[in-house]
Every structure is written in C-alpha cells, then in structure tokens.
C-alpha cells in the first residue's frame, strides 16, 4: 500500500499552547511552578532539605524570576538517590519507569504517572505537529524501544497525532530500508547519525530515497550540525528536523524545531527553561550563551526543579516566523561536562573507568577513541596491558578482552570494542589524563 492517503492541511491548531499570548503563558507557568515546587517540597526529602537550607518556600515564588532562588538539581542527585529516591508519587500511582545511563555504574531511573505520560505524549504530538506532520502521515520510528525514552515517547506522540506509527525500533538497517520503501513511510525518527548511516546503505543497495514518499526526518538524542543537516537534506530530499529532550525531564519532546528550522521551541508550558552561567550559576539574559536549566512544571512522579542539563545553548530573543510564542533555544552542539553521546546513548568516561577498574582490580592507562565511519559514530576503548594481567597464553588475554567488553556493555548498554595495546603506547599527559580522543570531524560530519 503506497501512500495514497490524502494529507490534511492546517497541521497545527492555533489553540495549541504553542501560540499562547505571552502573559497568558506566564500566568500558567507561575501557577504551575508554585504547585510543582510545593509538591516537590512535600514529597521529596532531597528538595525539602535543600529548600530549607536556602530558606525558600513555594509561597515565595511571586514571579517567574523568583525561580532563581530555588536550588539546582544535578545528575548526580539521581545517582545518589538511586533508584527511587526522587519520586514524589507512591508506586501505586506510577505507571511507567524508564532508565538512562548515570555517570558511573548504575543507571538513573525516571518515573511517570498517567498524567505525566499524557503530558509527555502531548509534547511529542506538538513536536510532530511543529515538524509539519499530521494525521495521514506514516511515521517509521527507529528510536529504540525499551528503557530508553526515545522509542515509546515518539510512539505515543505519533499515535496521538493520528499518524500511522511503524514501531520498528533501532537497528537492522536493511529491514528499515525495506519498510521505508514498501510501507510508504513519510517521516522517519532516529538519531541523525543512524539516518546518515542508512543513507549510505541505501546508496549501496541502489535505493534512491529521493524517489520515496519520505519527506521529514525527526532527529534527536545526539548533537549534530548544520553541515550534517545540509548533507541529509541534499542526499535524501527530506526536511531534517532537530528535536531535543532528556530522560530526566521527560524524554524526547522537551523542545523541537518548527518548519522554519531556526532554533528549537521549548514546550515551556511544561518545561521551564533558564540559561545560567555554568561556573557561577547566575541566570543569564536571553541571547546569552550558557547552560540550559529546566524545571518540569507538571511532572508529578518525579518533579525536576532547576535541573542542570549541562547542554550549552541560549534562548533566542526574537520571535519565530512560524507564529509560535513559546521561546526557542539554539541548536545544542556542546556540553559543559564530559558526557559523550554515541549513537544516541549517553556515555560518561567515568562509566568506562569504573568498568575497567572492576575487571582489572587496578586502573591501567586507557583511552577512549571516537571516530566516525559512514556517518555512524564508533567508540573504541584502548587499554594498556600491564604486567599484572599479561599472560603468555593467547586465551587468557582474549578472555580479559571479552571481560572488558562485557563490563563496558553492562554499564553503558552498548557494545564497545576493546583493543589491548602495549605498555606506554597511550600518550601520557601532565596533569589531568586526556582520556577521550575525538576523531569525529563534527564540521564535515565525515559523510563521504
């Protein structure tokens, strides 16, 4: 069945909160902020302790600027309260859990009540609508289904939109391409690097994506560049949209580009954005670059108050031509910490270190080498062979190698190649060891 369905026009209703008048929006935001802060204070020990220490109460929030008096929340707070310490709802009201990688061995866990799922679905529906999709579209969802928020988040949003969802999940490129051709897919959801990899494969197989009904790509879960967008759009004939989200806040659906493709609108009636100086924590005015801080205005199961995303961006002061009044952030392509994003998976060098330490007992010199082949990111961990682990038997070294691979997979959930290298071959640096060698050329995207 090729795509013979008629496309409806008028993709986005002007009654959507995306188009609320500024003062209306702010009124909703301050009301919701007071409510969520009071919920966080009442139900979560960590927030209560921190707010008491700062002597700040929900009632003190007279205007949105007062949010600056609230303490920040950071990723390690989720680790320290693992697994359920930040939940503000009893388990009987929590209907879903997801998890994403933490900074060391254990993942971080996020929770949703039914209302939280409804909010998430709504924000993803608005994401798709902003990208010009609507009922009648056939959305092939190649975000991973499972603990990762990408798959299910996009799935429910697409269904609510009234589109047809193909829940392929990630991987199996040949099957993705078969479905893309045979099912009349009009929009594709994945990481941008996976899509460029798929384009390579399509061209090897003699498939011309430009001749297919596919017209939009909804790409997120990793930073990418304008150059990559230009390459994708040119070689596939689609419009490539950048979307933004993180599990701690909800998953995908925190922000999205619109058809203007000029910055990402933050669904700020749900997720309140601030930009701070990452060093001082001071709130910066619109138009200045800094770290994005988000507060979930509606999240019941796990409110996030002033969560430091570590993503570097700015709030764009100008109004968007699309007419949406919700503000935009500039596309994110760097972070204020050392988190790596490989094929949509968040990896901290500290996780890799803890895995190696667990296998070898002591920490040998190691480095993480990132490269890009055919648009797809590769990660290899090189570990020096020490006298302690060295053996005259090949089998023993191969076993060490596979134990390292297994330990890395356990903490990161992806398969990472391990190369054993000779003593003293990894460059020593004075002071802090340079653990990450990034050979990916972000500018070019190495797309040839």
């Amino acid at each position, binding site marked *: 069945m090729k795509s013979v369905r008629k496309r409806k026009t008028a993709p986005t209703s002007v009654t959507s909160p995306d188009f609320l008048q500024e003062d209306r929006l702010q009124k909703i935001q301050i009301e919701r902020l007071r409510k969520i802060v009071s919920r966080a204070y009442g139900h979560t020990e960590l927030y209560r302790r921190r707010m008491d220490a700062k002597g700040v109460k929900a009632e003190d929030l007279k205007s949105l600027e007062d949010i600056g008096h609230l303490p920040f929340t950071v990723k390690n707070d989720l680790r320290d309260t693992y697994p359920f310490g930040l939940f503000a709802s009893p388990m009987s009201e929590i209907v879903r859990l997801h998890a994403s990688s933490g900074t060391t061995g254990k993942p971080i866990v996020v929770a949703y009540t039914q209302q939280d799922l409804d909010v998430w679905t709504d924000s993803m529906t608005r994401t798709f609508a902003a990208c010009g999709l609507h009922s009648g579209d056939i959305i092939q969802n190649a975000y991973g289904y499972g603990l990762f928020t990408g798959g299910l988040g996009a799935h429910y949003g697409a269904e609510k939109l009234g589109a047809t969802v193909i829940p392929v999940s990630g991987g199996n490129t040949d099957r993705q391409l078969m479905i893309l051709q045979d099912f009349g897919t009009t929009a594709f959801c994945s990481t941008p690097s996976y899509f460029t990899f798929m384009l390579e494969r399509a061209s090897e197989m003699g498939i011309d994506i430009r001749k297919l009904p596919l017209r939009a790509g909804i790409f997120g879960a990793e930073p990418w560049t304008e150059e990559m967008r230009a390459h994708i759009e040119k070689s596939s004939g689609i419009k490539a949209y950048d979307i933004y989200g993180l599990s701690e806040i909800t998953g995908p659906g925190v922000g999205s580009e619109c058809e203007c493709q000029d910055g990402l609108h933050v669904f700020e009636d749900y997720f309140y954005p601030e930009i701070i100086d990452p060093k001082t924590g001071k709130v910066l005015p619109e138009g200045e670059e800094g770290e994005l801080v988000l507060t979930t205005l509606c999240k019941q199961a796990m409110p996030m108050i002033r969560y430091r995303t570590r993503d570097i961006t700015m709030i764009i002061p100008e109004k968007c031509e699309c007419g949406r009044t919700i503000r935009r952030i500039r596309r994110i392509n760097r972070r204020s910490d050392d988190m790596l994003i490989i094929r949509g998976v968040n990896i901290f060098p500290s996780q890799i270190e803890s895995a190696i330490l667990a296998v070898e007992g002591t920490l040998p010199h190691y480095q993480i080498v990132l490269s890009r082949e055919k648009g797809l990111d590769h990660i290899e961990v090189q570990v020096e*062979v*020490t*006298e302690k682990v*060295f*053996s*005259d*038997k*090949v089998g023993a*070294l*191969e076993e060490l*190698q596979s134990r390292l691979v297994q330990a890395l997979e356990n903490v990161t959930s992806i398969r990472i190649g391990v*190369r*054993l*290298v*000779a*003593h*003293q*071959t990894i460059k020593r640096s004075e002071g802090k060891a340079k653990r990450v060698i990034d050979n990916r050329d972000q500018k070019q995207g190495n797309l040839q």
Partner: protein
Amino acid sequence: MKIKQLSLFIENRTGALSAPCSLLAKAGINIVTLSLADTQNFGILRLIVKDWRKAEKLLSSHDFTVKTTDVVAIEIDDRPGGLANILGVLEKSALNVEYMYAFPSGKDGKAVLVFRFEKPDEALKVLSAEGVNVLGEAHLFKD
C-alpha cells in the same frame, strides 16, 4: 629441569616485532628459539634466551610488558615420528599442553621441543618416568 621463557606483549602493527629484537641484538643477547602467537589485534612473542634475567631486565626497562614462564625442553630424534612419540606419552598421561614449538638442536640428528604445560611439575615427573630426555639450561645453552 624447567627452562625460563620470556613472553612479550606485541601490538599487531608494523615494527612491533623488530623493536624488542633489535634491543636484544644491541645487548648481544642471542635468541635460542622463539614463537609468535598472533591474534587480530595483538601478538605474544615467546623467547628462549640464555641470559633471561638480563633480557627481562632490559626489556622491562624499555617499557615492554614481559612475563617469565616455566617451560619444559625435550630433546628428541629429528626423524619422522619423533614428535608423535612424545605426544603419545603426553596423551597417555593426560598432560595438558598450553602450546609448544620446536627447533633443530645444534647436535646432529636431534631436535628440541619446547612445551608449555598447564602443570609443568607434574609433567616433569611423568616425562622422567618415561625416560624422556628433558634438557636443563646447561644442555640447552651449551655453546
């Protein structure tokens, strides 16, 4: 009568093998025999040298990862069936061999087998009982 074998970690790349060998050459250390185990990414160079202590020290000080291992050297007749004979003895006694290599002895008509046993002491007992000619350092490194 075990023999010391040096093992070195070698990366699978150009020049990786020549570095330790030229280091030994410059120090005047002769390699009696060697074997190289290779995998896709790395190799293990196993060396038998007379002055293994000196060689070990030298290699370690040049950042090589070195390990000494006990191996057993056996002299056999260099003729068809010489190896098969010994292997028959090992099989009968259920002695596990991790790996082995061989080289012609300096003596006419003789060859030397180097065995890395899982349990070298147990192997030595069995081999002596079977009347196998196990070589000590004195014999192996006879000039």
